[in-house]
């Protein structure tokens, strides 16, 4: 991956504070940009699975940078070492930075040991997006799944992360669930650490 957009590492990094306080842009600006990202990728793929993968890749690079940014800024360089620690870091700290709120819920999967789910009633990136019927279960939340994978991977917790619509009764709109399936070695290490 070309290094564009990497963090400034030069001497002057000490003078320029990494973040000039909480800067914001309008939701519309982000929505139009994200819509263009999706439209561009639609022109580059032949099927929905590929589109989802490309959105995820785009998200992955964002996730990797978010982790670096947050570790420098908030944690004073202390890295999460435990599974629950990194999950709650994603569920609250990362979500707050990206979406201005803590995620609606964080649950452990019931069937499988290695699965966790972060759910959001109205995922920001999906706010204005209506999926055409013929695209089946496609979810632009794949971008957010990529961000989560980027954060987890860079923090040493490799996983497969996917985005799914989950219908909620009494609601016209399904919520989005980010399903995290950790790699074997993460569980083994977690077991070792007791």
């Amino acid at each position, binding site marked *: *991956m*070309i*290094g*564009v*957009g*990497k*963090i*400034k*590492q*030069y001497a002057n990094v000490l003078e320029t504070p*990494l*973040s*000039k306080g*909480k*800067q*914001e*842009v*309008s*939701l*519309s*600006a*982000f929505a*139009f*940009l*994200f*819509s*263009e*990202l999706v*439209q*561009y*990728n639609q022109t*580059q793929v032949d099927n929905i699975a590929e589109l989802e993968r*490309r959105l995820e*890749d*785009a*998200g992955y*690079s*964002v996730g990797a*940078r*978010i982790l670096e*940014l947050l570790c420098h800024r908030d944690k004073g360089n202390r890295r999460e070492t435990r599974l629950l620690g990194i999950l709650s870091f994603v569920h609250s700290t990362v979500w707050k*930075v*990206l*979406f*201005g709120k803590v995620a609606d819920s964080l649950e452990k999967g019931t069937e499988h040991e290695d699965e966790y789910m972060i759910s959001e009633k109205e995922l*920001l990136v999906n706010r204005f997006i209506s999926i055409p019927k013929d695209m089946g279960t496609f979810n632009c939340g794949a*971008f957010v799944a990529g961000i989560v994978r980027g954060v987890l991977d860079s923090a040493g917790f490799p996983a497969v992360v996917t985005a799914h619509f989950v219908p909620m009764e009494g609601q016209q709109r399904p919520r989005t669930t980010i399903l995290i399936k950790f790699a074997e070695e993460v569980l083994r290490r977690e077991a070792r650490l007791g």
Partner: protein
Amino acid sequence: MAPVAPRSGDAIFASVEHVNAELFTLTYGAIVRQLLTDLEEVEEVNKQLDQMGYNIGVRLIDEFLAKSNVSRCVDFKETADAIAKIGFKMFLGVGASVTNWDADGTCCSIVLDDNPLVDFVELPDTCQGLYYCNILSGVVRGALEMVSMKTEVTWVRDMLRGDDAFELQVKLLKQVPEEYPYKDDE
């Protein structure tokens, strides 16, 4: 009805939903990286970014006009002023000013006070010739075309290339005048 005065950029920005600029910046970074991977030539990436900006401008203009109460975009000077002063603030939360108008008022510069696209960005030397923020020039061009002002928008100064500010030049190419050729085969 006396036309309602256009709302200030700050007033609109304060009244709309916001997101953290970092999400915006990093998502944009992801787009540029994708383009650099998909398209070998940096010049191709510049063109694609401008086109993506144009696609956004064509859609965004409706929201800009509706929310800013700009009554009519007939005069290029007024419109350029509105886009700089209201548009950039309303969408990106940054101020911008319009300067160096040419004699006949068909070319000007928009100087950005700040640019949320470029936080944390350092262009490696493999990207010589890249106009990283080309999406913005496309947005201005697309928006203006929707109010029937064909323009050419280019970067005159780019901080990522060592300049001291971000400056866009907006040149009006064609604006069909109000009166029009009336053809009737009577």
